[in-house]
Structures are given as structure tokens and as C-alpha cells.
């Protein structure tokens, strides 16, 4: 555990910040927000139009982990996609089925073009199979879950590039 702040060698590492700023300048970034444990570095640059990140009420919602408590299958909240991708999320809780029935080809694979009404998978809950539609248009660039995998509400099933 961290000791009293004053006894720590170097509360803010200027070298790191200088390097970060150089990076921002060079790469025209508008904001950098870094945290590690208690440490946080948040840098924003240029245009006042940059959306002010809502400051963390989230320090606020701390992840209070009793360190020795076993954590089995804690699912992290869906991570932001790297590009402008659309996520197709599970609207329910159940088992993901990629194809209509065993032996059939999958509804979609990477490269498939989908429209809002395209059926992309089925999710089974209590013996009921729910057909899930894409609800968006584009090309599937990632299938995020395995066949027959259990999915929660909100689990990202596919990523779709709308501009492809």
C-alpha cells in the first residue's frame, strides 16, 4: 500500500509529463487522461471546443476490491472500440448461437455486410431462441464471442464498420 504521500519520492513526474506534452503537440492530441492506482495525469490541449471530460465522480465510484476476495468472472464494462465502429450488444442474457442450427453456416462472419434487419445470431434463454438483428448497417469486422458462449446483457457480440 502506498505510504503517506509526503514520504514518496516523486509525486509528479515532470519528465513523463514533458514527454506526454511533446507527444500531444506532435500528434495533435486534444486530451490525455492517465491514471494508475491513485495517480492520475490529465492533459488537454488547444480548442476550447474540446469536450470537457466530466471529471471523475468516478474517483467516486471506486472499485473497492477486498484484495483477497476471489474474483471469478467479473466482466469488465464494454471497452470503447478503437475506431468508429458500431457495437452490436446482447439485448438479453443467455447462450450465443452463431448459426441457425448445428451444421448450418454462421449467420455472419468477419466480412459479412449487414443491414438493420440482418439476423446476426440467436441467443437462447430458457429454451427460447431469440433471433438478434444487426440494427445497423456496415461490414462485420469482429465476432466478439464464441459459439455457445454465455453472454450477459450488454455483452458486445459483433463490431461493425459502418463506413466500409
Amino acid at each position, binding site marked *: 500500500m502506498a505510504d503517506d504521500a509526503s514520504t514518496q519520492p516523486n509525486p509528479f513526474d515532470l519528465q513523463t509529463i514533458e514527454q506526454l506534452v511533446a507527444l500531444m503537440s506532435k500528434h495533435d492530441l486534444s486530451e490525455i487522461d492517465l491514471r494508475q492506482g491513485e495517480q492520475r495525469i490529465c492533459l488537454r490541449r488547444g480548442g476550447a471546443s474540446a469536450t470537457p471530460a466530466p471529471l471523475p465522480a468516478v474517483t467516486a465510484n471506486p472499485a473497492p*476490491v477486498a484484495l483477497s476476495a476471489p474474483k*471469478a468472472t*467479473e*466482466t469488465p464494462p464494454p471497452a470503447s472500440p478503437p475506431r468508429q465502429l458500431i457495437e452490436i450488444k446482447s439485448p438479453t*442474457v443467455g447462450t450465443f448461437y452463431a448459426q441457425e442450427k448445428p451444421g448450418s453456416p454462421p449467420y455472419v462472419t468477419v466480412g459479412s455486410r449487414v443491414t438493420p434487419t440482418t439476423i446476426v445470431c440467436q441467443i437462447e434463454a*430458457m429454451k427460447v431462441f431469440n433471433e438478434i438483428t444487426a440494427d445497423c448497417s456496415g461490414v462485420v469486422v469482429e465476432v466478439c464471442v464464441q459459439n455457445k458462449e454465455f453472454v450477459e*446483457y450488454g455483452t458486445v457480440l459483433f463490431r461493425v464498420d459502418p463506413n466500409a
Partner: protein
Amino acid sequence: MFQRILIANRGEIALRIIRACKEMGIESVAVYSEADRGAPYLQLADQSICIGPAIATESYLKIPRLISAAEAADVQAIHPGYGFLSENAHFAEVCRDCKIEFIGPPPEAMHRLGNKNEARKLAQKAGVPVVPGSEGLIEKDEEALALAREMGFPVLIKAAAGGGGRGMRVIREEAALLSGLRAARQEAESAFKDGSVYLEKYIEQPRHVEVQLLGDRLGNVIHLWERDCSLQRRHQKLVEESPAPNLPDSVRKKICESAVRLAKAAGYYSAGTCEFLVDKQNRFYFIEVNARIQVEHPVTELVTGVDLVKAQIRVAAGEPLPFAQRDIVHRGCAIECRINAEDPASHFRPSPGLITRWQPPGGPGVRLDTHAVAGYRVPPNYDSLVAKLLVYQPTRADAIACMRRALDEFIIEGIHTTIPLHREIMRHPAFQAGQVDTTFIERTWQKKG
């Protein structure tokens, strides 16, 4: 014993069940809606599964999703907590169909007790007093007069089509009965297009006394004495305690034994509560059974030393009750104050939001059941209970003094809570004298409430 249990609930009761599981060496699977994502108590479970959006009908009340989660997590049992699906016999049946143990009473008993009329009849058959009244509608004036004389005044005329207090009329003396009946019928006719009325004994300023029951699947049912929950605001309990103050021991015993008789007649097992009204002459009348663990169960845990949630789990796993009635010793006095995220100074308006400071009380005699921590955001979507502050002391006077002290120590910032109201209640002479009834809060804090 179960290896893994799913908890189909949220907030403090979910944490309560997680704690019981941890202490029993059972793995716990928590479920949560998007409004509860990241709530600290979820991390104390062995596993947690998102089951839907904030709205309860799509998450905590959505049976297929709960069952899906239970099957995926491979649990042997589901604990429903209180509220949500806890008294839903259909849910208990679905669990049974899916070969998952429902930690609660059998659906048959839930059906029997869930219908007020059937429960009333069952109680009468079991020799448990109910609120006297006409069995059906009152057709003739002579009928009404005879019944009212039999029950004694005051009586209550209720519109059959009314509800929630509408179409009710209190008659305090015989001379007013017939004119009252006429007026009530006219009012009901014009208000509900149905002039039929019935008659009931009016219990003035009653106390709410309930009996904690515990039964196993072998037919054993015991009581764990009573709780007094008279301190309510609009039927929402605020303060609960045990023993019920100023209740003669003979009455206490009779109420508790009545509750056991009814539970046995209903084929009840698991934890449950039998609710009674008690009038000023200490006559008691059965109202209803709450077929679940209750918010205020810790009051009974403190005075009996019995862990009710663990007992529920053991009974659900088929174990017999580990104690007989004679083993249950009531000792001392326990009081619970419900700390709700509400503003008592502003008509109890809900006050969800970020808890910026949280400094709980502690020390001798204090128990605090809460899922809140500093930095926790109380979601606006569910009930406003954020903590149950309990004290346990040898006497009621000691318990009140201890509660006052604990309330004074309790600091919550960022949201409004019922703490200031509780501080006043604990200093109120009527409460200190154990002389409150279900109308006390409205009568005393009328201007504020």
C-alpha cells in the same frame, strides 16, 4: 449444501446474502442492472452478471434472464431477497421446473397466503383472530346494525369498489350508522358507479406487530418472537424493534403461537412474517403473511442470536431446523432505523445521487447493514433504502440511548437522508414511552410530511 447461489436482488439485501454465503463457504453469483454496474457490493460476490437495463421489469423482475444467468452460472439455488420477485409464486414455480431451489416458501403456500381472502379464511380456520367484519356486502340496514352491535363501535364502512382509503367512512356510534350507510352508498354510487358497501371493525390507532417465523421442509415451524413496526409513514416502515414495548407477555405469547398455527396450516417453510394489528386493549387481528425475508429481519437476529438468512439457506437445502422452539431465547432489546435517501424536510422527496462523505457509526451495540460507501452513487431507479442502522442493548432505554448516540455519529453528505427525522423520533417522549401507533408519524410531523 449448495455449492453456488444466485442472488436475484440488489443493494443491501444482496450484500446481506453475499455475506451469509461467504460465511457458509457457498459461492455467490450477483446479478445487476446497468444502473447498478460498478456498485461496490458486487465485487464481494464471486461472480456478477449484468441482466438488463435500469428498469426493473427488464432486469430484476425479468424471470427468463434470471434463470438464464442461474443456468449459465450453474447455481443450485436462487435467493430472491425481498421485494422484486420474492413473493412471486410463479417465479418459485419456474425455479422448481428448472430444478433450481427457490430459497423461500413453497409456491403452494405462497398461493394460499397471497390471496387476502383465502389467507383470512385460513387464519379463521386455524383459530387466529382476524379483523371482524361482514363476510360479504351489506344489503340490509338491520344486517348492518346487528353486525355493528356485535363488533362494537367504531366501525368502518368500506365501498366495495373503493381502495387505498377512498370510499371509507368511520362510524363512531349507533345513532350515526344508518345515515352513514345511506351517505356511503350514495357516495360510492356516484364515485365508482357501484353503491355496494361492506362493514368492518375500525381499529383505532393500531400498533403493527409482526411475528418472525421459520419452518423447515419436515413440517417444523417455530417463531422467533415479535417485532413492533408501528412507526410507519404511509405504510412505509421507518423504525422497527423487538420486543414490542408495553405488550403484556401473555398477549405476546398468544400472538406468536397464533402465527405458528397459521404457518403450519398453510404448509409454510423458510422464513416468513405474520403481521397483526394490535388495538389499544391489546386485542390482536391477523392482517397478512409476508412470505419472504423482511427488511427488518436483523432486529430479530439481534435479540435471538439466530442468523435468519443462513437458516433460510439451510432449510432450502433440505436441512431440518437446528433448534426447537424452546431453544429460542429472546434477550435484550433491538431497534432498527431505516436510513433512506429521502429528504424528510421536503415531503420525503427521494434524494438519489453521489454520496460524497460517508462516516458510519460504530462501537458497542451497533450493527450497520448497508451497501453504500463513500463515493457510491445512489441510483434513482429503485427503493431509497441506503442503510439499516441497528442497535442491541439490554433494555429499551439503553437501546434508545445507543441509537441516539449512533445517529449523532452518522455523517452522510451528498444526499439527504432520514437521519434527522430518526434523531427526532428517538428524542420524542411518546416513542420513548413506547406509545406510538401507525398514525404517529403523520400526526406528529404533519406539517413536514
